[in-house]
């Protein structure tokens, strides 16, 4: 009698331990789950990426103009200057557009940086499609180097009508594992 209860206790104990381990795994699974959720819903300001051919095939909506603003910032203590050449431009949805950003490495050693984009308002992020971006790859700047960097994008004509302004924000972070001084 006692023996069988002890057995049952141990069995239940191991089952509950398995639940615990599964929930630990679930904590990690939340990371991709949130990412997928953000991608599906366009929350989190994550932008879309399409090929140049797809972009060219979009019909251009000449009757509508959307203002795209550019915001730049530096994350952490990266010794760079980073600016957009123009603060904002007006685009027709469907039209491929190009914008240029300038980064200056003010340090006396080469540094690799990584730009993280974000689009506001969040709900419009998935209608902002990039065909080419300096944020797709790491950017290495030699000591004192100035570099022009290009982003090409298309605003999806399906962008909701109430959105008149989109803000594209870039933050440059140091990619420490790739930088020369590390």
């Amino acid at each position, binding site marked *: 009698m006692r023996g069988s*209860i002890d057995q*049952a*206790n*141990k069995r*239940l*104990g191991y089952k*509950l*331990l398995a*639940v*615990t*381990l*599964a*929930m*630990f*795994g*679930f*904590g*990690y699974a*939340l*990371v991709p789950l*949130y990412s997928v959720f953000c991608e599906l*819903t366009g*929350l*989190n300001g994550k932008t879309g990426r399409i090929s140049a051919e797809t972009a060219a095939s979009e019909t251009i909506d000449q009757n509508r103009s959307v203002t795209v603003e550019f915001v730049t910032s530096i*994350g*952490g203590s990266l010794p760079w200057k980073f600016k957009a050449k123009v603060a904002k431009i007006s685009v027709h949805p469907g039209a491929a557009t190009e914008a240029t950003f300038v980064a200056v490495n003010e340090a006396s050693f080469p540094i690799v940086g*990584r730009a*993280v984009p974000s689009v506001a308002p*969040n*709900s419009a992020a998935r209608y902002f499609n990039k065909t080419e971006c300096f944020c797709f790859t790491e950017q290495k700047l030699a000591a004192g180097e100035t570099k022009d960097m290009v982003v090409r994008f298309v605003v999806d004509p399906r962008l909701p009508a109430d959105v008149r302004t989109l803000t594209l924000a870039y*933050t440059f*972070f*140091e*990619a*420490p*594992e790739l930088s020369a001084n590390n």
Partner: protein
Amino acid sequence: MSDAAAHGEHDEHHGYHPGGMKRWLFTTNHKDIGTMYLIFALIMFFIGGAMAMVIRLELFQPGLQFVEPQFFNSMTTMHALVMIFGAVMPAWTGFANWLIPMMIGAPDMALPRLNNWSFWILPFAFTLLLGTFFMPGGAPAGGWTMYPPLVLQTGDAFPFLIFAVHFMGASSIAGAINIIATVFNMRAPGMTLMKLPLFVWTWIITAFLLIASIPVLAGAVTMLLTDKFFGTAFFAASGGGDPVMFQHIFWFFGHPEVYILILPAFGIASAIIPTFARKPLFGYASMVYATGAIAFLSFIVWAHHMFTVGMPLAGELFFMYTTVLIAVPTGVKVFNWCATLWQSSITFEVPMLFSLAFVILFTIGGFSGLMLGITPVDFQYHDTYFVVAHFHYVLVTGAIFSIISATYFWLPKWTGHMYDETLGKWHFWLSTISVNVLFFPQHFLGLAGMPRRIPDYAVQFADFNMVSSIGGFVFGFSQILFVMVIWKCVKGGEKATDRVWEGAHGLEWTLPSPPPYHSFTTPPAPASIEGGMR
């Protein structure tokens, strides 16, 4: 909170019992382990309380008087960690250890060695945590919520913080597994699930919340650890991660956690109010279902802690509606306690006083919680003293008052002596008046815009802060009375009867006071099981 002397004379017939320190190190007895948990929780309550005193001292007047801002931030961070993981959670596990086997007619916990282990992890966890005060860079100061990137700036203390959280989590998960196994497998014949006392029911649901949510916290802090030391980028934007994701993962644990802290309190109130109202609990079954409903909802409301991070409207609406929905099962509970009191014959012994104060003051905390749950106004209240007032009403006058109430209620059973009623009444009135002087003005401070976790404030907040600090000091020092009552009761006092309270019902009251070291080695007769209705 009894001591060795209280049941030492009963154990000579049962196997091997080392004396002295070895008894406590190697014990697998649920009563010994319960006692250790409760004493540990009491010590942590005073350590965390001392930190709160430092906070209120610094905030007594505007300007910086006593501590450095960094140390102040360590105080708020460590106060929360110590009180949540060191005081309230171990206290509940201590009550579970002492009471659940006696309430369900079991000889001991299901996994006694695991039980020993789950307690003895705790002193190590808190040595790691409190040891950080002596490390370069000081104790963690980024808030108990450990948000990156701020928490990653913690000095040498950082890995100690993470491992301490791991240990605390392992301890509470082990405790939870043990409690589930005990209730599922060890109930006396005739003790059906719907006859379980509500304290057992609320603890079972708490235990499931623990094993479902604590591992997620363990995962989140492990990600912080690998972000800091092993080059992962879960929360580092530079590597494509997202700091807001930490908040989502943390609060997926964090909201069930707040019910882990409060659900057993609902069980305590449901035991004490019927006893002193001399009336069966109103709506036993609805209490069980309401507890289950709260537990379920707790997993789908987490983002109400982070309304201001920039969520889409649909998300804000979803989390607002589910949050406000929790008021329904909670309202059922408060209604049932009030209905139990209706047309009953009440006496006001100390446990009843604390439980009645719990119902009233916890409900005030619930109401401010509703206000915070409404997204548009939360933007004003977020990270202000209104939030501080809210969670201290639900945790101090909620969880802590309930723990104190339960201690007074079962202390005569555990020690075999009645506590000092006069001293207990002093403790109650001083605590209840001062705790309101302490926390009520903080609502006004918050509504006026005073931010939390800041060591200084604008002068227009000075008066309410001084009032709050005075309440804080009185509340803090009143708790010394609590220790005096416990000490006196352990040492001696009027002999307690087996039933102790005229209106007490349940299996633990059929045992002698104090109960023998090994109780219910043969299950109680099914006829003695009255069921949780009583």
